[in-house]
């Protein structure tokens, strides 16, 4: 592999100077933003139709393109906005900031802007889904709360563990393999209320991008996907307030200038109502969540911008003061955009993020805290070398501190001894370089390399085992059990326990047959050094993250994807078909008696396994007109296998492949919206999924008066009944809005219209009254009507 990498670098070095000095050229650069608010726009097409060249704005609305001297027609187009077309005489390097006007505002109507997600036929990017806040808000969801994660689950290749399950699964990957970035900061838990809602307030979000494959070298650290979410910057022209009153939560967001046209703030809050699910009981029980999004931006001058982003969210449960549970994320990010030249854009980020989990159990007399915090320094460059060649490169270093848990007595009478689980420390750093290279009018490549390096620093105590073997297989009794440690090794924080280095090549190529049809192929290799210790169907907020080290190796992934892309009628319809295959090394699996809670010796309970997934995704979209929407179909398989370490050991599930709990053979989702007139708009979803893999008992036995279902078959060989449902919504925008400053809309929705009892699980147990064994189906959401009111002024 080393050889291939040298070849790659050789290619880069060869091309770069060649392109720069070949002809007299000038550079056009600038920032594209929305006229009404100065909000920068991501992914805007900056096109030169006569010569078929173009560039797309980056995450900060910046573009740069270098062209031979000449007069050109310049066309800036972004769906939902009026095209900006102008003549440009490129006889010197030029800076051209352009402001676009919303198509809807020209008509002086308020409808939520629809920057419909456009398909880029020619760009060497595949396996990416983009959604705007506008699209997300139109998708009917449970209890009427617009939700990012519930929306991406409607896309091909994305599923979740089920209703009420945290996180999401991309292309048969586990929930902890998703890199979730909010303004570039890592989010460790994306769910509120155990997965009923996600932590992102859709009002504060500008743009989301989900990378399922072909992941560029700039991203690393998680192997399944990247969910890249950008918050709005705030309106630097005028003060605006918008908000909503929903069935579950209410939102309020304020934005406005701190210095006109130069700086803006944005503050958004969202809170659910207390006693959310528990009003039926006379106890003093509460369950609620809240979050706060903030952003400040300030334009120092044409070449320097500063951004400060923050997020704070918590979930709180309390049962009659005897049980209290609090958890959530905190994120703070300071960024500095700097233009070194009209071709070299840079962004320096200093990011802090943490995840906290706290629990107080008064009836046992203890308090429990755990969490993970990290400091991240990132410096990214985007170098617009020529119209055919752009380079992205950068460095990144993250320092992690893991607090696996601390238990404390919660009152003087409690018999609990204080115990601190050993803190762990690690550093993950990376350098990357990535080229976007247009070889010919038909062929474009993106290729790059990321080199990642992980250091596990010293900790107070590390368990040492005979022959470095933390667990054994008991041949006679036929189970795995932990070995007792033979000692501990003490380290100082500056010691290094273990290091890992991985080279992660990435390549995507796009071959366009014409302007409307292309094929694309990609390969990416990625590594993941953090592991979420979770042995449940979907992660729980209580699960702790643990770093790779002496006993746990980093997860390594290879993913291959090929796709066929077609745009019909100038993007009125788009069709995307992709096939993917991925294999993952070092996926940890758990022995039967594994205990993941407060475990200081997790190495005694885990085995090293592997995983693979493959599938076919199909997505057809209608992007324009009164009726818009998409139909997605995914056929896939996701499996896991853990062999014994020697011939004498069976491993997990007798060393055979078994379906993961998030394997969904067929997954169909349809989302559509129909705009009848300016007053009424309707939306609908239909979802069909193969039932989740599960286990049925092969028998029962009795022991000490207990009736115990016996599971002797292969793991996950049965499946729950198929999951399907229909949701509908209607949005009413009163006409009197036109003249008023206050603009409101009503959203009526019904989730699970035909009240299907979708099985979240089937449980096998003895009925406490009849003493007969039975299978009990649990379904989470039946039919749920909801109403919400959104406003802005």
């Amino acid at each position: 592999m080393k050889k291939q990498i040298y070849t790659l670098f050789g290619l880069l070095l060869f091309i770069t100077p060649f392109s720069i000095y070949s002809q007299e050229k000038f550079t056009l650069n600038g920032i594209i933003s929305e006229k009404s608010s100065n909000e920068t726009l991501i992914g805007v097409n900056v096109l030169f139709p006569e010569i078929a060249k173009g560039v797309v704005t980056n995450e900060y609305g910046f573009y740069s393109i270098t062209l031979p001297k000449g007069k050109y027609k310049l066309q800036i187009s972004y769906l939902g906005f009026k095209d900006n077309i102008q003549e440009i005489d490129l006889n010197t390097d030029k800076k051209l900031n352009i402001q676009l006007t919303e198509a809807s505002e020209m008509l002086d109507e308020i409808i939520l802007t629809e920057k419909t997600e456009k398909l880029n036929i020619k760009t060497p990017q595949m396996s990416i889904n983009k959604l705007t806040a506008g699209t997300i808000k139109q998708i009917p969801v449970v209890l009427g709360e617009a939700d990012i994660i519930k929306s991406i689950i409607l896309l091909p290749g994305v599923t979740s563990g089920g209703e009420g399950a945290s996180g999401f699964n991309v292309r048969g990957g586990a929930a902890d393999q998703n890199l979730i970035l909010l303004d570039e900061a890592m989010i460790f838990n994306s769910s509120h209320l155990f997965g009923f809602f996600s932590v992102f307030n859709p009002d504060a979000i500008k743009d989301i991008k989900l990378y399922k494959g072909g992941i560029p070298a700039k991203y690393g650290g998680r192997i399944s996907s990247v969910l890249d979410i950008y918050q709005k910057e705030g309106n630097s022209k005028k003060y605006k307030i918008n908000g909503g009153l929903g069935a579950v939560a209410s939102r309020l967001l304020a934005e406005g200038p701190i210095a006109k046209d130069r700086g803006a703030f944005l503050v958004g809050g969202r809170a659910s109502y207390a006693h959310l699910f528990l009003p039926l009981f006379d106890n003093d029980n509460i369950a609620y969540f809240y979050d706060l999004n903030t952003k400040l931006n300030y334009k120092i001058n044409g070449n320097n911008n500063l951004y400060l982003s923050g997020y704070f969210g918590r979930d709180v449960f309390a049962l009659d003061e005897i049980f209290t549970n609090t958890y959530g994320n905190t994120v703070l990010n300071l960024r500095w955009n700097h233009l070194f030249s009209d071709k070299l854009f840079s962004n320096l980020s200093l990011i802090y993020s943490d995840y906290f989990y706290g629990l107080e159990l008064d009836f046992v007399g203890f308090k429990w805290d755990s969490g993970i915090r990290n400091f991240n320094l990132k410096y990214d460059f985007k170098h617009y070398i020529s119209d055919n060649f752009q380079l992205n490169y950068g460095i990144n270093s993250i320092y992690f501190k893991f607090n696996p848990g601390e238990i404390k007595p919660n009152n003087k009478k409690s018999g609990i001894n204080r115990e601190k689980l050993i803190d762990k420390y690690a550093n993950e750093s990376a350098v990357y370089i990535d080229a976007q290279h247009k070889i010919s009018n038909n062929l474009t490549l993106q290729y790059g390399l990321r080199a990642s390096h992980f250091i596990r620093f010293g900790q107070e105590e590390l368990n040492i085992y005979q022959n470095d073997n933390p667990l054994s297989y008991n041949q006679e009794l036929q189970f795995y059990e932990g070995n007792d440690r033979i000692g501990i090794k003490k380290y100082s924080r500056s010691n290094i326990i273990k290091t890992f280095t991985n080279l992660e090549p990435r390549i995507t190529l796009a071959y366009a047959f014409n302007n409307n049809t292309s094929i694309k192929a990609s390969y990416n290799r990625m590594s993941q050094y953090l592991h979420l210790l979770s042995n449940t169907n979907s992660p729980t907020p209580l699960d702790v993250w643990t770093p790779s080290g002496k006993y746990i190796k980093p997860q390594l992934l290879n993913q291959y994807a090929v796709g066929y892309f077609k745009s019909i009628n100038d993007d009125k319809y788009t069709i995307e078909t992709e096939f993917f295959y991925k294999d993952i090394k070092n996926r940890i699996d758990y022995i039967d008696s594994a205990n993941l809670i407060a475990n200081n010796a997790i190495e005694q309970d885990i085995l090293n396994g592997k995983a693979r997934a493959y599938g076919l995704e199909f997505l057809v979209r209608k992007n324009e007109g009164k009726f818009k929407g998409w139909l997605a179909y995914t056929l896939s398989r996701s499996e896991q296998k853990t062999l014994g370490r020697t011939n004498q050991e069976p491993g997990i599930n007798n060393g055979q492949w078994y379906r993961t709990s998030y394997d969904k053979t067929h997954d169909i989702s349809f989302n559509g919206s129909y705009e009848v007139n300016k007053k009424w708009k309707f939306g609908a979803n239909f979802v069909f999924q193969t039932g989740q893999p599960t286990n049925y008992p092969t028998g029962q036995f009795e022991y000490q008066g207990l009736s115990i279902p016996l599971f002797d078959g292969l793991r996950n060989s049965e499946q729950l009944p198929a999951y399907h449902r229909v949701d509908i919504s209607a949005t009413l925008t009163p006409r009197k809005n036109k003249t008023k400053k206050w603009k409101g809309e009503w959203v009526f929705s019904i989730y699970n219209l035909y009240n299907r009892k979708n099985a979240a699980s089937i449980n096998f147990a003895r009925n406490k009254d009849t003493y007969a064994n039975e299978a009990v189906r649990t379904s989470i959401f039946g039919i749920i009507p909801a109403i919400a009111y959104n406003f802005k002024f």
Partner: protein
Amino acid sequence: MKKLIILILGILVLVSCEDVVEVDVPNGEPKLVIDASFELYLNETPIEFAPKVRLTLSAPFFDQNIPEVQGAIVYITNTNNNTIINFEQVPDSGLYVPAEEFPTPQFGTLYELTVVYNNETYKATTQLIPTVPIDTIKQGENTLFNDETEIIIFFTDDGTRNDFYLFDFDFDLFLASEDRFYQGKPFNFSYFYEDMVNGRDVTIKILGIDKRYYKYTSLLIEQSDQQGGNPFQTPPAQLRGNIINTTNTDNYALGYFNLSEADKFNVTIKK
């Protein structure tokens, strides 16, 4: 600790709905089940010890009747002095009780259980594991969700050893616990009865167990419990106890041979 997750899940359960469904389940081969957990009450006068072994077979999940095993040979060997205590079958049942006086088990002695059934020999060994007494039990007034009844169990852990306990709350309700977080301390915790137990006499027991039996019972309790609506399910475990089929290892038996020192406490639940 597993209870924590379950508790959190209570919230989920409240919005969900449950119903009984018909499911075709696979049927495995019947396996011998050896239920041999003996409790020794050293604090009672006279000392109480009533060992019994129950032999059954595993059955298809929805069967109403569990087949009882008759005509097996059951005996226990004290490996210190190689004495054998033979067990005899209670007529027409799968219960086997000592055919002769069973000398009070001693700490530090290895006992071996032998069961011969269908020409195959099953063996398991165990030792007597000490416990601490229950200091007292009080009734509390807290509830979790609805109308549970709270009882508070007080006991004092022995600081000189790592203890594992199995609490038996009557009505086939069990809880396994380890002393890791209350080593050597007077400790109390609450247990909540879900069903109405008002006015009933309840016997609560504490059993000293070893780590392996602690793990086994934890799994057993978890797997038998009716935790409906749990999206946080762990994959079901293969429930292997400490019994070895010495004739044919693949045809393993289910169940466990356990010997615990125990203590009990009677309470009447107030209305």
